[in-house]
């Protein structure tokens, strides 16, 4: 029992609502996929490809949700606006950021950039694996392990023309993936700064669905 009771009901501050479940689930799925594929496991294996495909499906869902989802999740709630993003960053440095119902302008730009990076990483990954699904890749690996080398012959035939293209794809894949990891770090730093400036933990809104 505290003195809050006196003013608790009528002084309720405007608390931004937490993110909807689809935003939360897609956010953490993609975060986990990026961390596991980028930092934890060896690239190139079947698991790596599996996770890439999961990230692709999750990204697709988030983008669809940006059209059909509730207001805060829709793109129209956080259209990219570099100038607003800059002024928000200035406000943040001064320690007095504004509250926004959806992403703040800087956070919105970060979200779009991260999605673009992820799309590039996934696309180049698909080029590197010839668009084969992880199931196919696992089957081929099993076939090769069992002594059936015909898969490799097939690969060489189709692979002749795109040797150069494959190298470029690999290069882009790595650069975009590293860029994404760096941006993710920046994103975490931004959330920490903003949480301190606003005096409330922004991560909570991305984890819990409740209003407290």
């Amino acid at each position, binding site marked *: 029992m505290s003195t809050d009771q006196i003013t608790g009901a009528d002084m*309720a501050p405007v608390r931004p609502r937490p993110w909807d479940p689809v935003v939360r*689930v897609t956010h953490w799925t993609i975060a986990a996929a990026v961390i596991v594929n980028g930092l934890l496991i060896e690239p190139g294996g079947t698991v790596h490809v599996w996770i890439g495909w999961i990230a692709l*499906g999750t990204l697709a869902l988030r983008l*669809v949700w940006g059209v059909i989802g509730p207001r805060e999740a829709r793109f129209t709630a956080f259209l990219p606006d570099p100038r607003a993003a800059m002024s928000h960053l200035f406000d943040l440095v001064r320690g007095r950021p504004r509250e926004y119902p959806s992403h703040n302008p800087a956070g919105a730009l970060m979200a779009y950039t991260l999605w673009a990076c992820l799309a590039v990483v996934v696309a180049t990954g698909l080029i590197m694996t010839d668009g084969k699904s992880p199931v196919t890749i696992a089957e081929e690996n099993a076939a090769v392990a069992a002594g059936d080398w015909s898969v490799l012959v097939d690969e060489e035939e189709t692979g002749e023309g795109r040797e150069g293209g494959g190298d470029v794809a690999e290069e882009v894949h790595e650069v975009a993936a590293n860029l994404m990891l760096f941006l993710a770090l920046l994103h975490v730093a931004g959330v920490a700064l903003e949480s301190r400036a606003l005096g409330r933990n922004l991560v909570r809104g991305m984890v819990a669905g409740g209003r407290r």
Partner: protein
Amino acid sequence: MSVPEGSRARDRHGQLALAGVMVLQSVAVVFFMADAAADLLTEPLGSHSIVETLVTLALVAGVLLTGWQLRQTLERIRAQERTIETARGDLSRVIADQFAAWKLTPAERDVGLLALKGLDPAEIAEIRGAVPSTVRAQLTRIYSKAGVTGRAQFAAWFVEDLLDNGVADR
């Protein structure tokens, strides 16, 4: 508050489960799409690829429908929350206005609000760091300013107000 809190938590878990299923469905859609696309390229009009395309379309429709339903649910919950908040906000405004009209002092307003919330003089005294006899004297003054005989009538004054404006309209 404990009953709606519990059911709301259940609602939240249900929504989270729906969202999780949507992610799984989306990943499945990507797999089926890739498979169907590959089959369409190798065997454009085979029955196999036609069936696969149909399955993919059905999955996509499933994801979109689930998403649409989830959005409806979320919006309904929001509307309810807004109504509750408005009602709560309006009631506190009504109380504050009435306290002002009765010319209660700031201390009396605090005591009156706590009394409306159902606290007895001893509890109010504990919160305000006062002795119960002071609180009882303040309550007596509040009741006389409000022209009510006691605590029950004091609380009823506002409930009556709420009933007139709220339920009667429906």
